């Protein structure tokens, strides 16, 4: 294991894409200490900001309030990255595999354009979770993002595949221009959920305000929800599916695009 302890808060956000198991897996202690990080436009050494213990491992443990450290785990393909504390923007962006676990909060662009792997955040996340960067045609194309707390705007914007599950409150435009994949909203969402969605599934366990361009289609207990529930249960996330407990109201849309997406809202019996 490599343990990295933040010495002090950087004065401006620190860009540290070197904080990835792929980079450190084969490096000796000295080489890890000398890895480049960017403080604004200036290149600095990793050990200017972090206490480094251990070497050559694909298990990284980051400690301290790293909420000003950006791009942790960028493009990682393997290994395990644990953050005991908070993490900054773009955590796990472009990630391809491996796992990231955060005990605290994170902020915007969590898992943006990721294509595999698992990210689990115990606290809150910011906006654009699993989203497409500005101008890109698609957001996350596979993988799983689990958030215990709340999340911000444009969760899953332009996502194509994969699962995002959020336990707490979610703000406007969840699933904006979604092209596929699944978003689970444990506590519902604010306005315009699923706007411009083309395909994909948004599951809400609480009633949500529905856009007029979504059409009520059915009330049912689809078989695939049983499979989803079983899959998510293995990851520690519970969603209801049994007929005895209630049913899902299905709304199709967004007909302004026009899209073939669906929003399923749980109605307990």
């Amino acid at each position, binding site marked *: 294991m490599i343990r990295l302890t933040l010495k002090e808060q950087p004065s401006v956000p620190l860009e540290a894409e070197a904080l990835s198991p792929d980079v450190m897996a084969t490096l000796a202690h000295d080489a890890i200490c000398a890895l480049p990080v960017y403080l604004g436009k200036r290149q600095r050494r990793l050990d200017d900001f972090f206490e480094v213990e251990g070497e050559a491992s694909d298990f990284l443990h980051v400690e301290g309030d790293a909420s000003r450290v950006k791009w942790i785990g960028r493009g990682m393909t393997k290994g395990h990255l644990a953050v005991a504390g908070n993490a900054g923007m773009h955590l796990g962006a472009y990630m391809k595999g491996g796992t990231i676990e955060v005990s605290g909060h994170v902020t915007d662009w969590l898992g943006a354009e990721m294509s595999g792997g698992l990210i689990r955040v115990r606290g809150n996340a910011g906006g654009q979770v699993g989203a497409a*960067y*500005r*101008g*890109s*045609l698609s957001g996350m194309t596979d993988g799983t993002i689990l958030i215990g707390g709340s999340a911000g705007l444009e969760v899953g914007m332009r996502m194509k595949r994969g699962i995002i599950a959020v336990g707490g409150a979610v703000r406007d435009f969840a699933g904006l221009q979604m092209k596929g994949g699944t978003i689970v909203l444990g506590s519902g969402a604010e306005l315009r959920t699923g706007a411009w969605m083309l395909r994909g599934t948004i599951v809400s366990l609480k009633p949500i305000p529905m856009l007029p361009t979504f059409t009520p289609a059915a009330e049912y207990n689809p078989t695939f929800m049983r499979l989803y529930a079983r899959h998510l249960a293995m990851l520690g996330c519970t969603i209801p599916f049994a007929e005895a407990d209630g049913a899902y109201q299905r709304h199709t849309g967004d007909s302004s695009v026009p899209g073939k997406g669906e929003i399923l809202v749980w109605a307990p019996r």
Partner: protein
Amino acid sequence: MLRITGGTVYDPANGVNGVVRDVCIADGRIVSDVEGGRTIDATGMIVFPGGVDVHTHVAGGALNFARGLVPENQRVARKFLHAPGRRGGIGGMTPTTFATGYLYAGMGWTTVNEAAVPILTAKHTHEELHDTPIVDKSCLLLMANNEIVLDLLEAGEVERARDVVGWLVWAAKVYGVKAVNPGGVAAWKWGKNASALHGPIEGYKTLTPATIISGLAGIVDDLGLPHPMHLHCNNLGNPGNVATTIETMKLLQGHRAHMAHLQFHAYGGDGWETMRSGAVEVAEAFDSHPNLTADAGAILFGDAVTITADGPWQHMLHQLTGRKWGNLDVENETGCGIVPYVYRDRHIVNAVQWAVGLELLLLTRDPWRMFLTTDHPNGGAFWRYPEIIQLLMDAEYRKEQVRKLPEAAQSRIVLGDIDREYSLYDVAIVTAAGPARALGLTQKGHLGVGADADVTIYPAKPAADGVLFSYPRYVLKAGEIVVEEGEIRAVTDGREFIVKPAFDDRIEEYLRPLFQKVYTISFENYPVEIERVRGASVVGVRS
């Protein structure tokens, strides 16, 4: 003072075809001999005049709009970190100003012609060109949809139209005149296009694209501009536009003209399902019109951003692809549309386009009249020119690429049957000597005594990781070594070529009230001050 010794020199403008000789340089120019100074040993290397790009889009309002519209391309683009003496920037499809200079020079090109400037954004364009280092620049003024000019042409007041064009050229401090989809952009303001050369243009009673084409070409000839009218024909990109292109060539009989990105104007068939190469017909017609020059506007597979003043075509492309679309309206002068695009080798239409660009370069007989471009960034970025040169020089490699295309595409092109291979001499013509001559830049594109000392020295064999012409060993600009072993060594300021045609000053009395009536800026604020064009070099008109 500098001497390049032992290199094999290709200088087509002076008839030098692969001769081992010294090239001597003093005070930024080629001289017959020098005493002392540095010597570059170019033994086993080839020596070319610096490349000249006759048609590219590297500065100004439209390009800047495109830079903003495609952040997804900028993110993955090549980065230039700032270093002592060198500014930062990014490359990619729409490079930033400084990076544009580094990329052109890094490839061995030393003169570029920005092909589309509306007068209203000319100030912006000159500012950007000033920030485009190393290379020398010129730019062309968009004129074929300027409402003041069109009204005069419709009224038959050609004399006055000539004075207006002359005044506008000097007001914008440009080098020449560009005509984009004549009448089509004016019609676009009514939601229409101008696809029939002899049909009246929307918003006008009798004016047709044909009147504009022959009228403007005549005006440019009368004014004696060193570069003839630079024409983007009507019906760009439409299957079956061969007929329009050939008819346009006939209209230009008796005038000089340069036909831009001819690849986009050489399609046969009558719809997307039947679209095929029309390169044979176009090349044949082009060969029989010695008054014309053209550039290929070849495409390469991969990402591109399409930027053109041809607003109606861009709207069509947006509807075809579903990609994002930007549209600008430039008051009384022109318009602009931007759509990002990906050319795919499995797509039949794209495969035909790819072939047409190469076919035109290979089928037209006179390399002095057909030049290498990609209409950057429309057909592909300019820094991919070496890939096209490789395709032109190696018939076997080219045929191998053709065989990879979908069979439906192979049956619609003739590229697989062409055996011609470009020699190094031909390459020097289509990349430097020819474009310089077409632009009327007498001190560019050759290595004769008195020419600007813009010299590119390539290794005779390609590097292991690239094609020939990708990595020049040395690039000299105005006698200074700007690139050495693939590294930018010196960042110099390039010049900007402009012309001052003769016109009747009293034309201002005609224009002033029109301006008060129809423009959003005052007449006094309209012209570009000469102080704003830093490094301006005024080129004389033809006598």
